[in-house]
């Protein structure tokens, strides 16, 4: 009887849960402290390792994660405390990583993604973070809301050996 009480929305939820359960999934949450940048990239790399990627693929994933987490800490929270959340989902030939913060958000995503653009030119930042993510991952999307945070989603496909 309980089943018939489910409305459409509930069914959608059930379907979504079961689809993500087919794929191996992990979620990680940590303080937005720069000391955690290394922890974050190494953890995602360790999770990806079960797909038996090349060392080059692992390096590229680590670098892309490092860029996204650094952005969350420097730009999202800008010195304030907060948390960064990472999820990663594996299929048999890909990894999709999301890096989210609840920080101040990006006013102009297109400008932020432009090579060499930095909102902090006096701090010796290169403005290459998004460019590196784009070069090292196959797909990247950015969602941001002013005052509520930014979510970067990136996918990498592994070439079969």
């Amino acid at each position, binding site marked *: 009887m309980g089943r018939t009480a489910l409305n459409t929305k509930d069914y959608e939820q059930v379907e979504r849960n079961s689809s993500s359960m087919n794929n191996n999934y992990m979620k990680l949450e940590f303080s937005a402290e*720069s*000391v955690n*940048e*290394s922890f974050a*990239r190494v953890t995602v790399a360790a999770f990806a390792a079960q797909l038996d990627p090349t*060392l*080059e693929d692992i*390096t*590229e994933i*680590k*670098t892309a994660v*490092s*860029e996204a987490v*650094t952005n969350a*800490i*420097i730009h999202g929270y800008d010195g304030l405390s907060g948390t960064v959340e990472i999820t990663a989902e594996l299929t048999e030939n890909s990894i999709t990583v999301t890096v989210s913060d609840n920080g101040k958000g990006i006013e102009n995503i297109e400008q932020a993604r432009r090579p060499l653009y930095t909102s902090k030119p006096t*701090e*010796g*930042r*290169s403005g*290459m*973070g998004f*460019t*590196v993510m784009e*070069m*090292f991952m196959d797909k990247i999307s950015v969602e941001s809301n002013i005052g509520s945070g930014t979510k970067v989603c990136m996918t990498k496909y592994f070439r079969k050996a």
Partner: protein
Amino acid sequence: MKITGSIKNDTLILYFNGELDHHSAQTTKEAIDNMLERYRFKKVIFNLAELSFIDSSGIGVFYGRRKLVKADGGKCALADINQKIERFIHISGLDRMFELYDSEEDALEAWGEQL
């Protein structure tokens, strides 16, 4: 990240050991700038044999140090770039900002130093 320096004739060789990211960038900059300000070297070699990771925060570290040395009329090179960071050095454009050498000896030789 550990930075150690050695001096051969009038060239400063800086050895990078560890991971260069946003977290380690600030202390790395300070360590190098202290040496540069104190001794005013005109020739600096960054030995990257033991640099195991670099991301875009590292670009600013290298680019900024190059600017300091160049402002004093000097020159910089990257030497002994290991396989883990090789692709990043090319993609980031650092390979076009610096003279690149397979080893510090090659750099010293190219610069006319006695080995």
